[in-house]
């Protein structure tokens, strides 16, 4: 199979259990199948407590599944060591968080440079790339501002520029508009659409807002630890 035909994310039978072997053992994900194609803009919808965050942690390689296979951009991640997971997060995933998580006391430019610093990109190249990305998200004139000098929308745009820093395989956005008013939320969504359309970025959006989900290419619903196609009752399932 040709490389570009393979899905960026390929998950089969993902289980996640906590407190394994203890009386209060808890299974949050009950065998998830999920494929995300290159260039796709997918949203995962679900109420809180549905296992959405746990799934996001697994997709974002912050956590290992207890069981199942997960191939991200051609790399099997279920058995990787901690340092390998760090490298995968660094190169292949761009995180956008609900509460921005910019490093305080460090200006926008340095925040965008951070993932490149951990990737070992040399200083000059790093600085130029960060400048270019900040221009792209319309924050070129705020490069030297500290996070506490920026509005919520501006912070999220810096965070998106940071997510793009190492040109990752996917952008993983966790409730990116959750802390913003509807107008700035709209601007952030437009920015995602622009990145998806113009640069062909693969984006996975996690949200509880079905309206936002409807404007993406495809959406799946998380309910009680299982994924359903759209908002129908059909469980997402692939043959191996």
């Amino acid at each position: 199979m040709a490389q570009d035909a393979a899905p960026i994310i390929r998950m089969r039978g993902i289980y996640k259990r906590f407190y394994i072997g203890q009386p209060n053992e808890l299974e949050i994900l009950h065998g998830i199948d999920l494929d995300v194609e290159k260039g796709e803009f997918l949203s995962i919808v679900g109420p809180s407590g549905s296992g959405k965050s746990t799934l996001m942690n697994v997709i974002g390689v912050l956590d290992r599944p207890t069981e199942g296979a997960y191939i991200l951009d051609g790399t099997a991640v279920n058995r990787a060591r901690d340092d390998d997971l760090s490298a995968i997060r660094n190169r292949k995933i761009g995180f956008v968080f609900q509460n921005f998580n910019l490093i305080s006391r460090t200006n926008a430019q340095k925040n965008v440079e951070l993932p490149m610093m951990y990737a070992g990109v040399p200083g000059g190249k790093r600085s130029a790339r960060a400048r270019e990305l900040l221009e792209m998200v319309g924050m070129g004139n705020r490069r030297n501002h500290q996070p506490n000098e920026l509005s919520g929308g501006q912070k999220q745009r810096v965070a998106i520029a940071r997510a793009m820093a190492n040109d990752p395989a996917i952008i993983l956005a966790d409730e990116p508009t959750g802390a913003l008013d509807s107008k700035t939320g709209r601007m952030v969504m437009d920015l995602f659409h622009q990145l998806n359309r113009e640069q062909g970025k693969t984006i996975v959006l996690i949200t509880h807002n079905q309206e936002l989900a409807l404007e993406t290419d495809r959406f799946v619903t998380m309910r009680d630890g299982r994924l359903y196609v759209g908002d129908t009752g059909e469980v997402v399932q692939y043959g191996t």
Partner: protein
Amino acid sequence: MGLSESIRLALEGLRANKMRSVLTMLGIIIGIGAVIGILTVGNGLTGSITGSMSGLGASNIGVTLQEKDDDTGGMASMMGMINPDDDDLITDEMLDTLRERYGEYIVGIAIGESAGSGQAKDGRLYANVGLSGVNEEYQAVQNIDLLGGRWIQQKDIDGQRNVCVVSDKLVNNMFSGNISTALNSEVKIERNGEMLSFRIVGVYEYEASAMGYSMASEKDISTAAYLPISTAKHITGAPDGHSGITIQASSDIDSQAMASVIEDFLNHFYRNNKDYSVIAIAMSSMVESLSSIMNTLSIAISIIAGISLLVGGIGVMNIMLVSVTERTREIGTRKALGATNNDIRVQFVVESIIVCLIGGFIGIVLGTLLGYMGSSLLSEPSYPTAGYIILAVGFSMAIGIFFGYYPANKAAKLDPIEALRYE
């Protein structure tokens, strides 16, 4: 991530909390400052004491009587705490045979005996003196510099003349500092209520010794007035022998070996004496043991001061732990963005090392100042040696690593999911 990146990150972290960083450093500053200061003062003191002792004559050998059951290593006799009978004393005959036997190795034998203290008086003018009966060789052996006139000579001793050699301090007090007026003048010295009159034949340069640190003012300071030994004995009524002498060995022989030869030789005369024997100690071995005592002392005090360094280090660890907790979310974010556990560990250890190094450098500057001031007050001004500075830098760094590692490791091991969720 390179080291320069880690240093930049650490400096950023420290700048963000200036007050806290300075307070944390304070423990290290005080610790390093105290250790450097104490070592420097100790060094200065040792140097000046051993220097002034060797100035008295590195090749000199002190010979004193010692009680046979003495267990102070000759200390008691050196402090004049013995009461030998007349026939226990070292006689001139013994010294003559010593000279006959070992004359080629002996430059001189100085005899100096205290004849009590007194006060020179002339109307309202006065000067405190300690009377000391000496022989001709005393000047050369004890290295006394004459500013004018001559030293006590054999003819003065043979003739039991009432002549004396006084210090420039006495000349300052009594003759307005004019040495030529003082020479050949009579000086009256009151001793135990008795007025004695001496003709001044020489003036020597007084040197304050580091050991005999005197609280007296310049005017009241007591200096030695040297008399012929025979005159002094006549005044005190003391017997002819000597309880202590100083022998200057020639500079091309080992004075410590010479000391034991002299001790053995003179002890022949004391074979049948049941109370006393002779002990001979080379000045060089005294200098050695004194400087080793001083070194041990200053190291011991430094170790006590070093405890404040330990407290400082614990302070660093405490603040680093607070800092890790405070920055939990930041650590989570960094991990999500691809920082490895080691990147995080290095960041915090480097931060701790930098706090300690900056503190260490300020401490070195402070300690140098303190040491300089302290040593100027007590003796010659001195500076810390390069060794102390290297030691201080190394120690600061070691504290940084030791006390920074645990908090840094705690940060490195944080679970990114937990850390990101931390409020």
